[in-house]
């Protein structure tokens, strides 16, 4: 039986005008969550990902989430020493993965094709229990929309850029919201 405390999570990094944009999101929806988007101005490092993960996931854990499935394009490598890294950070929000009931890392279904045979067997959502038909790629479908924002907001100062991005993603979310009933009806609609 599925736990009501299950959370399917997706990490994505979006190369964004010479900056990496880090997005944390529910793996099964297609909405942006602004508080979970982190602007990475430095060279991409695990520590950025880890910080963002700890700051969002610690809230969820406080709210009662105990089973986490995390999908990430490079999850097979990144997840290796994750709990050890998290315990070493001094200023990040505290997140103890070992206290969770289960914490699993997977590679999303489209990306796993590019991985080796051992990854395809170990980090495959198709062979993982309790994840349903989650593919974990929903966040990247939005990139066609948000890529143009990179040039759009290139000349802005950081705060103005943040506001512009907020505006656009809120707009995206609103359109999703409006069409929510259409795309989430109980029976398939011709689209």
């Amino acid at each position, binding site marked *: 039986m599925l736990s009501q405390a299950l*959370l399917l999570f997706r990490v994505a990094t979006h190369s964004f005008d010479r900056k990496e944009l880090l997005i944390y999101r529910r793996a099964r929806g297609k909405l942006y969550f602004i508080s979970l988007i982190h602007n990475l101005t430095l060279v991409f490092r695990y520590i950025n990902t880890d910080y963002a993960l700890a700051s969002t996931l610690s809230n969820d854990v406080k709210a009662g989430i105990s089973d986490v499935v995390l999908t990430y394009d490079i999850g097979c490598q990144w997840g290796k020493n994750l709990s050890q890294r998290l315990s070493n950070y001094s200023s990040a929000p505290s997140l103890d993965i070992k206290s969770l009931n289960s914490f699993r890392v997977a590679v999303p279904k489209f990306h796993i094709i590019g991985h080796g045979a*051992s990854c395809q067997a*170990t980090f495959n959502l198709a062979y993982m229990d309790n994840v349903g*038909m989650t593919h974990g790629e929903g966040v990247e479908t939005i990139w066609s929309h948000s890529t143009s924002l990179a040039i759009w907001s290139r000349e802005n100062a950081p705060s103005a850029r943040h506001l512009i991005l907020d505006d656009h993603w809120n707009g995206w979310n609103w359109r999703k919201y409006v069409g929510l009933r259409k795309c989430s009806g109980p029976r398939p609609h011709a689209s």
Partner: protein
Amino acid sequence: MLIRASESAKAHREAANSMSKAWHKSAPGRRKLLLAYKQDKSKPNPFEEPDPGTSTYLCVWSLSQQHPDDVLDKLKDQLAREDSEQQGAGVSFPHKMTPAAFLQFALEVEAAQYVLFLLFQSLLTFGPRRILKTRGCENSEGDSSTFIERRRALTKNIDNLRDPQRLYMPGTSSHLSAADLILLADHPENVELWLPSALPSASRDTQCIAGLSKLEYRLRFAQAMTALHDIRLARRLLRILTTKSQTHITNTQRPGTRTCSVFDKAKAKLARAVSTYRTSRKAVVDLAPNEEFGLWKDTLRELKDGDIRGPGKEESGTSASRSAQSWIWTTGLQASSPGDSDLDIVLRVEWCKAQELAKRYEEEVQLVIEEMRRTLVTFKLNAHEWEQRATFSIPAVGDAAAAGITAYAYKQASIQRGLIKVFIKDWYDILTDRPHATPWLHDYSPPAENRRRRLVSNVQLYHSSSSPRVDTPHTINDVPPPSVDTMSLDVPANSSDFDD
């Protein structure tokens, strides 16, 4: 979403069960392997396909191995035993060839006819030089003989067949006409052998000795099973070769003639096995249309061209989660001891994948239901938050503005409640069909009117959700205070957790 998920879940569960049923002997072992791996990832991975190795010839060799418990071989042994038992019991046959031996010989002649037929076809198409190249479809015996010699040998064999045939099938002598004899001399590969299955069913019993039809049925059944096994082997071989040619691309413009010839051999093997299967199945259908001699309809299904695919998903085509395995991989399997041959492992991988796929779809149904619960709870929470905002007192603004703020907050809250209504209207019937999965549903009142009528067009849906009808009047005095029970939340009050 829910309907589609549950339909797929049902279909894939059926497919997985039929696979388990077909491999019932080895299923427990496989299940154990799968469970062991799930608990401990260091155990052998049941999803990994065997590596066919680097040598093409090695894998060809390993795949051309006969099944250790070949049905046809076992039946031949058994028939030989039965014959010797009968002879020991004093039963004598009018010919030195027993009926069982006669039929086996006839099947061999039939196979030789088919090979010669193919050879003749390619002779007509490509001329004599090409014949050497089509040897891939031949038996190893008689490779050195020329076409004419092979024809002569076949003619002789058919002649030898006629003697016992006149004795065991006395009614057929009328069929063996003079025209037949001329054909025999010129084109022995086209001569009708007149086995019991080729006779009209009404006169079959009068034209043959008793028991001959059943004997042929047993042989044909076993022949079809073996052919099915050969089809699977050839498909697997083709699969390996395709994968190899895709992954080991050489940077050369020379044609890979060796790979080509192996491909040709595999294709010829497949075509021959398919033809054998169809011939023997047709004989089985003719001999026992109502399964007089035993059950065959579930095992020997009609082999359409589209059925000859797999193992696994095709290179081009639908994704693995949408496509079903062909029946050739699930029926008529010659269950042996849990073998470690290449084909056994491939089939085990397919079985494991099918089980997992069925499970994923069943979980998907539960996930969709759980997501609907979270959706509704989120709407409820949003409405609750807006209602709380309505009671904020903001001293800086005047009374009129404060009234406006309150009205706006109630409007937003009512939009959220309207969304709950709309979603319940869409989902209530489907969710009530699954009471055990939706114990939370009684928190929501069923849609009031037109419970059974659903919206027909998407356009309608789109508009009704983009501007949900707001039932509450927009003046403050008319706004009813939110009732306590609609505000009660049974979830942690953190909106970010219930957003999907």
